[in-house]
């Protein structure tokens, strides 16, 4: 009998019952112990019904406590049981490896200690966002940043592509101890974005639905109104493109010179006309 501990981190998807994959569910049901971090109390009850030993990671959060400590404790909670020889499952809402620090750290640590550790993907908030808002990231391109990181570091953004800012409800927080930030901090974000976008450019506050009886939030408003908007922990800010893509004439000319090579390519390699009609409502406001 295998008494060596192991760790797998799985995603439950965003919506109760709708998004979890059979493999992720199998891991939850077969684990000796499940550690759970989800964003909805009813989803927590749902997962608790899949295994006799499901332990919520929620008590590790506290107002005024650094989330860095919280994430460290999440890792250690899981590793203690792995070291004790148990098959441990960390179940995280959405995708366990997207904007989720503890699963990555736990897997890294478990492997360093010689244990089997892996990750099973899940349907993330990003996936739901594309479906609910009708956005294809391939149409104009798509840039993703954590909102505070976007503010704290110099970034070069392209206003002809989508810009998506995660955890915008915490925009500007450097303490890691708060669960909301002020309108003054959000105004700084607006000032930063105003370098590339007009203040009347329409943006979208998005929240994925976590239950089949609720709807996703898709609230459109001008960028200037951001400081006054209700922004929750789960709110994501979507900034549609504000200008057309600019042709790179220099590179086009260089490609033109390679034309004889391109002409030998099979027909299936030829560029297809871009589908743009579905994003018109979101862009260039």
């Amino acid at each position, binding site marked *: 009998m295998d008494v060596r501990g192991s760790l797998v981190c799985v995603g439950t998807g965003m919506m109760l019952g709708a998004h979890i994959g059979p493999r992720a569910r199998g891991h939850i049901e077969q684990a000796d112990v499940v550690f759970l971090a989800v964003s909805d109390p009813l989803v927590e009850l*749902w997962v608790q019904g899949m295994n006799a030993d499901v332990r919520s990671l929620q008590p590790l959060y506290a107002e005024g406590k650094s989330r860095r400590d919280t994430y460290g404790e999440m890792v250690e909670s899981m590793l203690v049981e792995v070291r004790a020889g148990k098959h441990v499952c960390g179940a995280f809402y959405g995708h366990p490896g997207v904007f989720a620090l503890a699963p990555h750290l736990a897997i890294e640590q478990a492997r360093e200690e010689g244990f089997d550790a892996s990750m099973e993907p899940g349907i993330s908030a990003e996936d739901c966002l594309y479906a609910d808002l009708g956005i294809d990231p391939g149409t104009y391109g798509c840039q993703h940043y954590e909102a505070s990181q976007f503010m704290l570091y110099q970034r070069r953004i392209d206003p002809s592509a989508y810009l998506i800012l995660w955890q915008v409800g915490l925009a500007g927080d450097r303490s890691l101890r708060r669960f909301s930030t002020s309108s003054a901090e959000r105004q700084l974000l607006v000032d930063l974005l105003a370098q590339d976008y007009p203040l009347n450019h329409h943006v979208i506050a998005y929240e994925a639905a976590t239950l089949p009886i609720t709807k996703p939030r898709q609230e459109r408003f001008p960028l200037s109104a951001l400081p006054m908007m209700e922004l929750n922990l789960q709110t994501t800010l979507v900034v549609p493109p504000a200008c057309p893509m600019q042709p790179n004439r220099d590179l086009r000319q260089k490609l033109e010179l390679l034309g004889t090579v391109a002409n030998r390519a099979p027909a299936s390699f030829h560029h297809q006309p871009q589908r743009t009609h579905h994003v018109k409502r979101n862009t260039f406001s």
Partner: protein
Amino acid sequence: MSNAIRFLESLGQNPALSRLPAEQLQEMIDSLELTGNESDALRRQDAVALADALEKRAPLFCILWEPGQEPSPLDTPDDTEPLRDPTPDGDAPEEE
């Protein structure tokens, strides 16, 4: 797993249930042997009331990330110093 949660799971798995007429959905809810509060919350599609009825009202936090995690050898270590080693092999970058 409570019958109310099992019902939500069925709704999530089967989109056809969401398209049922209200009367038929109510019949399904009535057959679940729920408490009055649970049944009423489901009928009104009120997630907060359902969590209350199931005594699961504690707020949940849905933040699993912190800014400043990206590797950057140009960073001056400060109060946002990353938890993770900035290089793939775990060695800190040498300072010049």
